[in-house]
């Protein structure tokens, strides 16, 4: 009996040591992430003095998948690919009329709503002078029958992996608005609802430099900007400086709590979901 008690006590003690070690390891990892700038929540707590993490924190980009260029291009290359039915198609982007490119997938949940919404709403909701083209990855990465079933022939669909590369598409659903007079992107970004897309189109067209057809929008796609009118026609570094100045003017400097959201809802404004959409794709 005594021997059994000794064994039980020893086992409990061993488990306690293991649990303590795991918790300590977990805490170290969280602390390291905070120090690297990748934490979520209040970053004000500094690492303990003398720890290897007490050196000044420096921002480290957190990315998923292949790294994107530091400054995205505004060019709008022509499209070349195939249709879900196996025909070939080449579309020019600098032919005068604006084009809205909807980069969708057959597998993403959010895209499901767009497939049906864009097909049915194209004629009624989008501007009449806007050409809508849905772009999926090529047949080597997408299932043509699945795309054909989703498209239902209502919209122009081009299957082209090279288009996803040319337009630096980070994921789907992603939208790019092309100024047809210059073959240049004047707006781009993710959208979770058709309302966001319509907002993107309207905003980007309003922000054109010098009026319709002459410039690039400075407002990020899919995000309304209730403040003063955006300065347009800026290069990437100039736009970055302009953003910093505007944030500082609004009292938002380095370390401001709004720059460290605790949850996703603090970043994304509530939107009206697309019918049928049930999650992020």
């Amino acid at each position, binding site marked *: 009996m005594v021997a059994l008690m000794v064994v039980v006590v020893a086992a409990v003690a061993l488990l306690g040591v293991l649990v303590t070690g795991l918790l300590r390891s977990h805490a170290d990892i969280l602390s390291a992430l905070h120090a690297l700038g990748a934490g979520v929540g209040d970053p004000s707590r500094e690492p303990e003095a003398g720890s290897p993490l007490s050196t000044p924190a420096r921002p480290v980009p957190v990315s998923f998948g292949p790294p994107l260029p530091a400054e995205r291009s505004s060019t709008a290359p022509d499209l*070349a*690919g195939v249709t879900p039915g196996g*025909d*070939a198609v080449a579309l*020019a982007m600098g*032919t005068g009329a604006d084009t809205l490119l909807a980069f969708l997938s057959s597998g993403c949940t959010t895209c499901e709503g767009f497939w049906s919404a864009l097909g049915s709403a194209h004629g009624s909701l989008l501007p009449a002078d806007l050409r809508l083209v849905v772009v999926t990855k090529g047949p080597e990465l997408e299932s043509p029958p699945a795309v054909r079933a989703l498209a239902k022939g209502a919209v122009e669909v081009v299957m082209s992996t090279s288009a996803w590369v040319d337009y630096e598409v980070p994921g789907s659903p992603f939208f790019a608005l092309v100024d047809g007079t210059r073959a240049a992107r004047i707006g781009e970004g993710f959208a979770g609802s058709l309302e966001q897309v319509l907002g993107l189109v309207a905003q980007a067209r309003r922000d054109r430099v010098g009026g319709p057809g002459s410039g690039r929008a400075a407002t990020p796609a899919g995000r309304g900007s209730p403040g003063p009118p955006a300065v347009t026609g800026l290069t990437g570094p100039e736009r970055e400086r302009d953003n910093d100045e505007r944030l500082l003017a609004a009292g938002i400097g380095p370390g401001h709590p709004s720059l460290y959201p605790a949850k996703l809802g603090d970043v994304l404004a509530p939107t009206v979901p697309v019918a049928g959409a049930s999650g992020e794709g």
Partner: protein
Amino acid sequence: MGVIRSHGIEMAVPAGCEARIFRRPPVAGAATYPVVHLATFPLPGDVGDFGNGAVQVMGGNDVFVVLFEYGPESVGQALFARQGMPRALAPSDFQPYRLRQGVGGRSGTQWFFVEAGRPFSLYAVLGSHARRATLVPRLNGLLAGIAVQPAPPATLGGGWN
């Protein structure tokens, strides 16, 4: 410049041009064959095989090309005696009365031939007959980028478009 290929036809599409290589769904059991549209202007969504709907909206500086394949039984017929697609058209080949549908100021040309054992008709339209000396070299440049491969045996069969 992008390259598109389908139905045994490959085409280099210069920047700013639009093109389609398509095959209409068979109707009432009749076989259909590939059609190529190549234009220097935005192609409308629903264009007839020989350009109805596109020719009407093209500008004076535009050109439009149709490559229309016929059934293999056409090979050997007198109409398709020419071997090889014409790729060096002359301004004198274009006449307003050669348009399938008359549109003021435009002109066209049509040729029947066999390329890679496949019978085709080439139909080309200039946006302005008066500018044919400038537009025809541009059109010839487009034709130079079209390549036709022999049809695979499985696609050979009777029927007309």
